[in-house]
Protein backbone atom coordinates (compact mmCIF):
# COMPACT_ATOMS: atom_id res chain seq x y z
CA UNK A 1 0.00 0.00 0.00
CA UNK A 2 1.41 3.38 -0.95
CA UNK A 3 2.18 5.90 1.75
CA UNK A 4 -0.47 8.51 2.38
CA UNK A 5 1.22 11.81 1.53
CA UNK A 6 -0.62 14.68 3.16
CA UNK A 7 -3.94 16.49 3.11
CA UNK A 8 -5.47 19.83 3.98
CA UNK A 9 -8.04 18.05 6.16
CA UNK A 10 -8.14 14.48 7.42
CA UNK A 11 -11.64 13.22 8.24
CA UNK A 12 -11.59 10.31 10.69
CA UNK A 13 -14.62 8.11 10.01
CA UNK A 14 -16.02 7.16 6.60
CA UNK A 15 -19.66 6.90 7.65
CA UNK A 16 -22.30 9.25 6.33
CA UNK A 17 -21.27 12.16 8.56
CA UNK A 18 -17.59 11.85 7.65
CA UNK A 19 -18.52 11.47 3.99
CA UNK A 20 -20.80 14.51 4.07
CA UNK A 21 -18.12 16.61 5.76
CA UNK A 22 -15.51 15.41 3.27
CA UNK A 23 -17.82 16.22 0.35
CA UNK A 24 -18.52 19.73 1.61
CA UNK A 25 -14.84 20.37 2.34
CA UNK A 26 -13.73 19.06 -1.06
CA UNK A 27 -16.43 21.20 -2.72
CA UNK A 28 -14.74 24.17 -1.04
CA UNK A 29 -11.51 23.26 -2.80
CA UNK A 30 -9.70 21.52 0.06
CA UNK A 31 -7.72 18.30 -0.41
CA UNK A 32 -9.43 15.81 1.88
CA UNK A 33 -8.27 12.43 3.13
CA UNK A 34 -10.92 10.22 4.74
CA UNK A 35 -9.71 7.42 7.02
CA UNK A 36 -11.68 4.60 8.58
CA UNK A 37 -10.33 1.74 10.66
CA UNK A 38 -12.90 -0.50 8.95
CA UNK A 39 -14.60 -0.44 5.58
CA UNK A 40 -16.37 2.80 4.58
CA UNK A 41 -20.04 2.99 5.58
CA UNK A 42 -19.75 -0.28 7.48
CA UNK A 43 -20.63 0.71 11.05
CA UNK A 44 -23.48 2.92 12.27
CA UNK A 45 -24.31 4.04 8.74
CA UNK A 46 -25.07 0.44 7.74
CA UNK A 47 -27.08 -0.29 10.89
CA UNK A 48 -30.07 2.01 10.50
CA UNK A 49 -32.93 2.48 8.06
CA UNK A 50 -32.00 5.59 6.09
CA UNK A 51 -34.35 8.02 7.84
CA UNK A 52 -34.59 11.59 6.57
CA UNK A 53 -37.21 12.94 8.98
CA UNK A 54 -38.66 16.21 10.14
CA UNK A 55 -41.63 14.49 11.78
CA UNK A 56 -39.82 13.20 14.86
CA UNK A 57 -38.32 16.53 15.92
CA UNK A 58 -39.99 19.15 18.03
CA UNK A 59 -39.14 22.84 17.52
CA UNK A 60 -35.52 23.50 18.41
CA UNK A 61 -31.98 23.43 17.03
CA UNK A 62 -32.18 19.84 15.81
CA UNK A 63 -35.28 20.66 13.77
CA UNK A 64 -33.52 23.71 12.31
CA UNK A 65 -30.61 21.50 11.25
CA UNK A 66 -33.02 18.87 9.91
CA UNK A 67 -34.96 21.45 7.88
CA UNK A 68 -31.78 22.83 6.35
CA UNK A 69 -30.59 19.30 5.64
CA UNK A 70 -33.87 18.18 4.05
CA UNK A 71 -33.63 21.19 1.72
CA UNK A 72 -30.06 20.33 0.84
CA UNK A 73 -30.58 16.62 0.05
CA UNK A 74 -32.05 17.01 -3.47
CA UNK A 75 -29.47 19.66 -4.45
CA UNK A 76 -26.65 17.48 -3.16
CA UNK A 77 -27.96 14.45 -5.06
CA UNK A 78 -28.26 16.51 -8.25
CA UNK A 79 -24.63 17.60 -7.84
CA UNK A 80 -23.57 13.99 -7.36
CA UNK A 81 -25.50 12.90 -10.47
CA UNK A 82 -23.84 15.62 -12.55
CA UNK A 83 -20.43 14.68 -11.26
CA UNK A 84 -20.63 10.90 -11.06
CA UNK A 85 -23.38 9.93 -13.51
CA UNK A 86 -26.76 8.39 -12.69
CA UNK A 87 -25.51 4.92 -11.82
CA UNK A 88 -22.91 5.87 -9.21
CA UNK A 89 -25.22 8.52 -7.78
CA UNK A 90 -28.17 6.10 -7.42
CA UNK A 91 -28.96 6.14 -3.68
CA UNK A 92 -32.61 4.94 -3.62
CA UNK A 93 -33.82 8.42 -2.65
CA UNK A 94 -37.54 8.21 -1.91
CA UNK A 95 -39.35 11.42 -0.86
CA UNK A 96 -42.18 9.16 0.26
CA UNK A 97 -43.42 11.11 3.30
CA UNK A 98 -43.99 9.89 6.83
CA UNK A 99 -47.04 8.88 8.83
CA UNK A 100 -47.07 8.95 12.63
CA UNK A 101 -49.80 6.79 14.08
CA UNK A 102 -51.56 6.85 17.46
CA UNK A 103 -53.22 3.62 18.54
CA UNK A 104 -53.63 4.52 22.22
CA UNK A 105 -56.01 7.20 23.47
CA UNK A 106 -53.31 8.92 25.55
CA UNK A 107 -51.12 9.38 22.46
CA UNK A 108 -53.72 11.26 20.40
CA UNK A 109 -53.50 14.63 22.16
CA UNK A 110 -49.68 14.83 22.33
CA UNK A 111 -49.43 13.87 18.65
CA UNK A 112 -51.77 16.67 17.58
CA UNK A 113 -49.97 19.08 19.88
CA UNK A 114 -46.54 18.21 18.43
CA UNK A 115 -47.85 18.57 14.87
CA UNK A 116 -49.29 21.97 15.77
CA UNK A 117 -45.99 23.20 17.24
CA UNK A 118 -44.05 21.86 14.26
CA UNK A 119 -46.38 23.71 11.85
CA UNK A 120 -45.50 26.99 13.60
CA UNK A 121 -41.88 26.25 12.60
CA UNK A 122 -42.74 25.67 8.96
CA UNK A 123 -42.95 21.88 8.97
CA UNK A 124 -45.76 20.45 6.82
CA UNK A 125 -47.82 18.34 9.23
CA UNK A 126 -51.37 17.29 8.41
CA UNK A 127 -53.69 15.89 11.10
CA UNK A 128 -55.57 12.80 9.89
CA UNK A 129 -58.41 10.78 11.31
CA UNK A 130 -58.37 6.99 11.22
CA UNK A 131 -60.14 6.74 7.86
CA UNK A 132 -57.77 9.17 6.16
CA UNK A 133 -54.76 7.37 7.62
CA UNK A 134 -55.95 4.04 6.24
CA UNK A 135 -56.53 5.61 2.87
CA UNK A 136 -52.82 6.50 2.77
CA UNK A 137 -51.79 3.10 4.14
CA UNK A 138 -54.35 0.40 3.27
CA UNK A 139 -52.57 -2.27 5.35
CA UNK A 140 -52.52 -0.12 8.51
CA UNK A 141 -54.21 -1.58 11.59
CA UNK A 142 -57.86 -0.74 12.15
CA UNK A 143 -56.93 0.15 15.73
CA UNK A 144 -55.50 3.48 14.54
CA UNK A 145 -57.18 6.38 16.35
CA UNK A 146 -55.44 9.35 14.74
CA UNK A 147 -52.38 10.11 12.67
CA UNK A 148 -50.20 12.90 11.33
CA UNK A 149 -48.89 12.98 7.77
CA UNK A 150 -45.52 14.59 7.05
CA UNK A 151 -45.01 14.91 3.27
CA UNK A 152 -41.44 16.13 3.71
CA UNK A 153 -40.13 12.94 5.33
CA UNK A 154 -37.95 10.82 3.05
CA UNK A 155 -35.84 7.70 2.90
CA UNK A 156 -32.47 6.98 1.33
CA UNK A 157 -30.15 3.98 1.22
CA UNK A 158 -27.52 5.03 3.75
CA UNK A 159 -24.64 2.96 2.40
CA UNK A 160 -25.25 4.00 -1.21
CA UNK A 161 -25.51 7.66 -0.18
CA UNK A 162 -22.24 7.44 1.73
CA UNK A 163 -20.30 5.72 -1.04
CA UNK A 164 -21.64 8.26 -3.56
CA UNK A 165 -20.41 11.13 -1.36
CA UNK A 166 -17.02 9.44 -1.00
CA UNK A 167 -16.84 8.89 -4.77
CA UNK A 168 -17.29 12.64 -5.21
CA UNK A 169 -14.46 13.29 -2.77
CA UNK A 170 -12.19 11.05 -4.84
CA UNK A 171 -13.35 12.61 -8.12
CA UNK A 172 -12.23 15.97 -6.73
CA UNK A 173 -8.71 14.75 -5.90
CA UNK A 174 -9.34 13.52 -2.36
CA UNK A 175 -8.61 10.07 -0.98
CA UNK A 176 -10.56 7.50 1.00
CA UNK A 177 -8.65 4.78 2.90
CA UNK A 178 -10.42 1.98 4.71
CA UNK A 179 -8.54 -0.29 7.07
CA UNK A 180 -6.46 2.58 8.43
CA UNK A 181 -6.84 3.43 12.10
CA UNK A 182 -6.03 6.88 13.44
CA UNK A 183 -4.14 6.41 16.71
CA UNK A 184 -3.90 10.05 17.71
CA UNK A 185 -2.83 13.49 16.61
CA UNK A 186 0.47 15.26 16.03
CA UNK A 187 0.80 18.77 17.44
CA UNK A 188 3.12 21.58 16.54
CA UNK A 189 4.82 23.63 19.22
CA UNK A 190 1.96 26.11 19.50
CA UNK A 191 -0.47 23.26 20.28
CA UNK A 192 -2.36 23.21 16.99
CA UNK A 193 -2.95 20.01 15.06
CA UNK A 194 -0.41 19.34 12.32
CA UNK A 195 -0.95 15.66 11.60
CA UNK A 196 -2.66 12.35 12.30
CA UNK A 197 -0.78 9.30 13.61
CA UNK A 198 -1.46 6.09 11.70
CA UNK A 199 0.37 2.76 11.69
CA UNK A 200 2.71 3.75 8.86
CA UNK A 201 3.69 7.05 10.46
CA UNK A 202 2.09 10.49 10.49
CA UNK A 203 -0.05 12.16 7.85
CA UNK A 204 0.61 15.91 7.78
CA UNK A 205 -2.54 18.03 7.70
CA UNK A 206 -3.87 21.36 8.93
CA UNK A 207 -7.16 20.11 10.36
CA UNK A 208 -8.75 16.89 11.57
CA UNK A 209 -12.46 16.09 11.75
CA UNK A 210 -13.60 13.57 14.36
CA UNK A 211 -16.54 11.87 12.63
CA UNK A 212 -16.22 8.59 14.48
CA UNK A 213 -19.88 8.33 15.50
CA UNK A 214 -20.32 6.14 18.59
CA UNK A 215 -16.53 5.90 18.85
CA UNK A 216 -16.09 9.69 18.73
CA UNK A 217 -15.65 9.72 22.50
CA UNK A 218 -12.83 7.14 22.29
CA UNK A 219 -11.10 8.97 19.47
CA UNK A 220 -11.45 12.30 21.25
CA UNK A 221 -9.59 10.83 24.23
CA UNK A 222 -6.82 9.58 21.91
CA UNK A 223 -6.76 13.07 20.41
CA UNK A 224 -6.29 14.61 23.84
CA UNK A 225 -9.61 16.50 23.90
CA UNK A 226 -12.32 14.30 25.36
CA UNK A 227 -16.00 14.77 24.51
CA UNK A 228 -18.94 12.79 25.85
CA UNK A 229 -20.40 10.65 23.07
CA UNK A 230 -21.87 7.30 24.07
CA UNK A 231 -23.24 4.30 22.15
CA UNK A 232 -26.97 3.57 22.11
CA UNK A 233 -27.72 0.20 20.57
CA UNK A 234 -30.46 -0.37 18.04
CA UNK A 235 -31.69 -3.51 16.32
CA UNK A 236 -33.51 -3.82 12.99
CA UNK A 237 -35.52 -6.79 11.73
CA UNK A 238 -35.60 -7.34 7.96
CA UNK A 239 -38.40 -9.29 6.30
CA UNK A 240 -38.00 -11.29 3.13
CA UNK A 241 -38.88 -9.46 -0.10
CA UNK A 242 -42.59 -8.62 -0.24
CA UNK A 243 -44.98 -6.92 -2.64
CA UNK A 244 -45.68 -3.29 -1.65
CA UNK A 245 -47.03 -3.23 1.91
CA UNK A 246 -45.99 0.09 3.45
CA UNK A 247 -46.04 3.21 1.28
CA UNK A 248 -44.29 5.65 3.63
CA UNK A 249 -42.18 5.64 6.74
CA UNK A 250 -44.76 4.73 9.34
CA UNK A 251 -44.10 4.85 13.05
CA UNK A 252 -45.87 4.89 16.36
CA UNK A 253 -46.52 8.16 18.16
CA UNK A 254 -44.45 7.04 21.16
CA UNK A 255 -41.21 7.09 19.07
CA UNK A 256 -40.39 10.69 19.98
CA UNK A 257 -40.45 9.95 23.72
CA UNK A 258 -38.36 6.79 23.17
CA UNK A 259 -35.67 8.90 21.47
CA UNK A 260 -35.80 11.50 24.25
CA UNK A 261 -35.70 8.99 27.08
CA UNK A 262 -32.60 9.03 29.24
CA UNK A 263 -33.31 5.49 30.46
CA UNK A 264 -30.60 2.91 30.14
CA UNK A 265 -33.27 0.25 29.76
CA UNK A 266 -34.79 -0.98 26.55
CA UNK A 267 -36.98 1.52 24.70
CA UNK A 268 -38.93 -0.01 21.83
CA UNK A 269 -41.17 1.92 19.48
CA UNK A 270 -42.58 0.63 16.19
CA UNK A 271 -41.03 2.00 12.99
CA UNK A 272 -41.87 0.26 9.70
CA UNK A 273 -40.86 1.02 6.14
CA UNK A 274 -40.61 -0.75 2.81
CA UNK A 275 -37.48 -0.61 0.68
CA UNK A 276 -36.85 -0.56 -3.06
CA UNK A 277 -36.03 -4.27 -2.98
CA UNK A 278 -39.29 -5.23 -1.30
CA UNK A 279 -37.96 -6.02 2.15
CA UNK A 280 -39.63 -4.30 5.10
CA UNK A 281 -37.34 -2.84 7.75
CA UNK A 282 -38.69 -3.04 11.29
CA UNK A 283 -37.31 -0.94 14.16
CA UNK A 284 -36.80 0.59 16.61
CA UNK A 285 -34.99 -0.26 19.80
CA UNK A 286 -32.73 1.75 22.07
CA UNK A 287 -30.54 0.33 24.82
CA UNK A 288 -27.45 1.55 26.61
CA UNK A 289 -25.34 -1.60 26.71
CA UNK A 290 -21.95 -0.21 25.77
CA UNK A 291 -20.67 -1.72 22.53
CA UNK A 292 -22.34 -5.13 22.91
CA UNK A 293 -23.85 -5.93 19.48
CA UNK A 294 -25.51 -9.20 20.49
CA UNK A 295 -28.96 -9.79 19.03
CA UNK A 296 -31.33 -10.31 21.96
CA UNK A 297 -34.40 -12.47 21.44
CA UNK A 298 -36.52 -10.24 23.70
CA UNK A 299 -35.70 -7.21 21.55
CA UNK A 300 -36.52 -9.09 18.34
CA UNK A 301 -39.76 -10.33 19.85
CA UNK A 302 -40.83 -6.83 20.81
CA UNK A 303 -39.86 -5.37 17.43
CA UNK A 304 -41.95 -8.03 15.69
CA UNK A 305 -44.87 -7.59 18.09
CA UNK A 306 -44.94 -3.82 17.67
CA UNK A 307 -44.69 -4.02 13.88
CA UNK A 308 -47.62 -6.43 13.71
CA UNK A 309 -49.50 -3.99 15.92
CA UNK A 310 -49.21 -1.39 13.15
CA UNK A 311 -49.41 -3.75 10.14
CA UNK A 312 -51.18 -7.00 11.00
CA UNK A 313 -50.42 -8.48 7.57
CA UNK A 314 -46.77 -8.77 8.63
CA UNK A 315 -47.63 -11.51 11.11
CA UNK A 316 -47.06 -14.30 8.58
CA UNK A 317 -44.13 -12.98 6.55
CA UNK A 318 -40.66 -14.56 6.74
CA UNK A 319 -37.90 -12.76 8.60
CA UNK A 320 -34.70 -12.71 6.58
CA UNK A 321 -32.23 -11.33 9.10
CA UNK A 322 -31.67 -8.89 11.92
CA UNK A 323 -28.78 -6.56 12.65
CA UNK A 324 -27.63 -4.41 15.55
CA UNK A 325 -25.65 -1.21 15.58
CA UNK A 326 -24.87 1.81 17.70
CA UNK A 327 -26.16 5.36 17.57
CA UNK A 328 -23.87 8.13 18.84
CA UNK A 329 -25.64 9.67 21.81
CA UNK A 330 -24.84 12.89 23.67
CA UNK A 331 -26.27 13.61 27.12
CA UNK A 332 -28.06 16.79 25.97
CA UNK A 333 -29.32 15.05 22.82
CA UNK A 334 -27.83 17.50 20.30
CA UNK A 335 -25.07 16.78 17.77
CA UNK A 336 -21.58 18.15 18.31
CA UNK A 337 -20.42 20.19 15.29
CA UNK A 338 -17.53 22.62 15.56
CA UNK A 339 -13.92 23.25 16.48
CA UNK A 340 -12.59 21.99 19.76
CA UNK A 341 -11.71 25.06 21.88
CA UNK A 342 -8.85 23.18 23.52
CA UNK A 343 -7.09 21.99 20.35
CA UNK A 344 -6.86 24.35 17.37
CA UNK A 345 -7.41 22.37 14.16
CA UNK A 346 -9.41 19.58 15.80
CA UNK A 347 -13.07 19.56 14.74
CA UNK A 348 -15.89 17.30 15.82
CA UNK A 349 -18.92 16.24 13.74
CA UNK A 350 -20.78 13.60 15.70
CA UNK A 351 -23.48 12.85 18.25
CA UNK A 352 -26.47 12.63 15.88
CA UNK A 353 -28.13 9.71 17.77
CA UNK A 354 -30.60 8.11 15.32
CA UNK A 355 -30.86 11.07 12.97
CA UNK A 356 -27.43 11.07 11.33
CA UNK A 357 -28.51 10.07 7.85
CA UNK A 358 -31.04 12.88 7.54
CA UNK A 359 -28.81 15.45 9.21
CA UNK A 360 -25.68 14.63 7.19
CA UNK A 361 -25.88 17.23 4.37
CA UNK A 362 -26.45 20.18 6.72
CA UNK A 363 -23.79 18.86 9.12
CA UNK A 364 -21.23 18.65 6.34
CA UNK A 365 -22.18 22.08 5.11
CA UNK A 366 -22.05 23.62 8.60
CA UNK A 367 -18.68 22.09 9.34
CA UNK A 368 -17.25 23.27 6.03
CA UNK A 369 -18.70 26.76 6.55
CA UNK A 370 -17.09 27.03 9.99
CA UNK A 371 -13.79 25.54 8.91
CA UNK A 372 -13.55 27.79 5.83
CA UNK A 373 -14.63 30.89 7.72
CA UNK A 374 -17.90 31.33 5.81
CA UNK A 375 -21.12 32.56 7.44
CA UNK A 376 -23.08 29.40 8.26
CA UNK A 377 -26.71 29.00 7.20
CA UNK A 378 -27.59 27.27 10.47
CA UNK A 379 -26.84 28.79 13.89
CA UNK A 380 -23.82 26.80 15.15
CA UNK A 381 -24.16 27.81 18.81
CA UNK A 382 -26.39 24.94 20.01
CA UNK A 383 -23.97 22.40 18.46
CA UNK A 384 -20.75 23.89 19.86
CA UNK A 385 -18.22 21.58 21.49
CA UNK A 386 -17.95 23.78 24.57
CA UNK A 387 -21.14 22.58 26.29
CA UNK A 388 -20.99 21.42 29.92
CA UNK A 389 -22.47 17.96 29.22
CA UNK A 390 -20.26 17.34 26.18
CA UNK A 391 -16.83 18.76 26.93
CA UNK A 392 -14.96 16.52 29.36
CA UNK A 393 -12.27 17.90 31.66
CA UNK A 394 -10.62 21.30 31.42
CA UNK A 395 -7.09 20.17 30.67
CA UNK A 396 -5.64 18.44 27.65
CA UNK A 397 -3.30 15.50 28.36
CA UNK A 398 -0.78 14.89 25.60
Amino acid sequence: MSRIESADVVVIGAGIIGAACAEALSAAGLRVLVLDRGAPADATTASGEGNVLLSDKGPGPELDLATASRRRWPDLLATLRDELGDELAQVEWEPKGGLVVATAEEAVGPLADLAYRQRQFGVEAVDLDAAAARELEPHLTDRVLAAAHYPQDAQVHPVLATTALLAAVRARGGEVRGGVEAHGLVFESGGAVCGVRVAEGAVPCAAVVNACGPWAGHFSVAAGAAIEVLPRRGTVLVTGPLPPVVNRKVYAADYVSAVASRDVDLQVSAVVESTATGTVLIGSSRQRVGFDDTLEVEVLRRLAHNAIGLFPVLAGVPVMRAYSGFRPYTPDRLPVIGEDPRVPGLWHATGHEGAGIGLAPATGRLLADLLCGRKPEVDPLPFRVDRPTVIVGPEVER
Partner: protein
Amino acid sequence: MQVRWDGEEVEAEAGQTVAGVLLAKGVRSWRTTRGAGRPRGLFCGIGVCFDCLVRVNGVPDVRACQRLVADGDDIRPQSGAELPS
Protein backbone atom coordinates in the same frame (compact mmCIF):
# COMPACT_ATOMS: atom_id res chain seq x y z
CA MET B 1 -41.50 -40.77 -1.69
CA GLN B 2 -43.63 -38.81 -4.13
CA VAL B 3 -43.97 -35.03 -4.31
CA ARG B 4 -45.66 -32.79 -6.92
CA TRP B 5 -43.88 -30.05 -8.89
CA ASP B 6 -46.27 -27.68 -10.69
CA GLY B 7 -48.88 -30.44 -10.72
CA GLU B 8 -46.59 -33.21 -11.92
CA GLU B 9 -45.61 -36.26 -9.80
CA VAL B 10 -41.88 -36.44 -9.02
CA GLU B 11 -39.80 -39.03 -7.18
CA ALA B 12 -37.94 -37.71 -4.15
CA GLU B 13 -35.79 -39.18 -1.41
CA ALA B 14 -35.84 -38.56 2.31
CA GLY B 15 -33.23 -35.94 3.18
CA GLN B 16 -33.47 -34.06 -0.11
CA THR B 17 -34.26 -30.36 -0.10
CA VAL B 18 -36.91 -28.94 -2.42
CA ALA B 19 -34.07 -27.32 -4.39
CA GLY B 20 -32.32 -30.68 -4.64
CA VAL B 21 -35.44 -32.37 -6.01
CA LEU B 22 -36.02 -29.61 -8.58
CA LEU B 23 -32.42 -29.43 -9.72
CA ALA B 24 -32.28 -33.21 -10.10
CA LYS B 25 -35.31 -32.93 -12.34
CA GLY B 26 -33.52 -30.30 -14.46
CA VAL B 27 -35.65 -27.40 -13.17
CA ARG B 28 -33.35 -24.41 -12.61
CA SER B 29 -35.91 -21.65 -12.10
CA TRP B 30 -39.03 -21.79 -9.95
CA ARG B 31 -39.73 -18.12 -9.27
CA THR B 32 -40.04 -14.88 -11.22
CA THR B 33 -38.92 -11.47 -10.04
CA ARG B 34 -41.40 -8.87 -8.83
CA GLY B 35 -40.57 -6.19 -11.33
CA ALA B 36 -39.55 -7.65 -14.69
CA GLY B 37 -40.71 -11.24 -14.24
CA ARG B 38 -37.21 -12.64 -14.74
CA PRO B 39 -36.35 -16.23 -13.79
CA ARG B 40 -34.86 -17.03 -10.39
CA GLY B 41 -33.86 -20.26 -8.64
CA LEU B 42 -30.94 -21.26 -6.44
CA PHE B 43 -28.34 -18.60 -5.60
CA CYS B 44 -26.45 -18.91 -2.32
CA GLY B 45 -27.72 -22.37 -1.49
CA ILE B 46 -27.18 -21.79 2.22
CA GLY B 47 -30.40 -20.08 3.24
CA VAL B 48 -29.28 -16.47 3.53
CA CYS B 49 -30.13 -14.79 0.22
CA PHE B 50 -33.90 -15.49 0.06
CA ASP B 51 -33.73 -15.76 -3.72
CA CYS B 52 -34.85 -19.42 -4.04
CA LEU B 53 -38.37 -18.81 -2.70
CA VAL B 54 -41.02 -21.28 -3.77
CA ARG B 55 -44.58 -22.15 -2.76
CA VAL B 56 -44.92 -25.38 -0.73
CA ASN B 57 -48.34 -26.70 0.27
CA GLY B 58 -49.91 -23.33 -0.41
CA VAL B 59 -47.43 -21.30 1.65
CA PRO B 60 -45.25 -18.87 -0.36
CA ASP B 61 -41.73 -17.63 0.39
CA VAL B 62 -40.32 -21.01 1.42
CA ARG B 63 -36.54 -21.23 0.89
CA ALA B 64 -36.16 -24.22 -1.43
CA CYS B 65 -32.54 -24.76 -0.39
CA GLN B 66 -33.49 -25.20 3.28
CA ARG B 67 -36.82 -27.05 3.17
CA LEU B 68 -36.59 -30.84 3.33
CA VAL B 69 -39.26 -32.61 1.25
CA ALA B 70 -41.99 -34.66 2.89
CA ASP B 71 -44.19 -37.27 1.21
CA GLY B 72 -47.02 -35.63 -0.72
CA ASP B 73 -45.59 -32.11 -0.71
CA ASP B 74 -47.22 -29.85 -3.33
CA ILE B 75 -44.49 -27.61 -4.76
CA ARG B 76 -45.50 -24.79 -7.08
CA PRO B 77 -43.77 -21.85 -8.76
CA GLN B 78 -44.04 -18.42 -7.14
CA SER B 79 -44.63 -15.18 -9.01
CA GLY B 80 -42.57 -12.34 -7.61
CA ALA B 81 -43.04 -11.78 -3.89
CA GLU B 82 -46.28 -12.87 -2.34
CA LEU B 83 -47.98 -11.93 0.89
CA PRO B 84 -49.24 -14.81 2.99
CA SER B 85 -53.01 -15.12 2.80
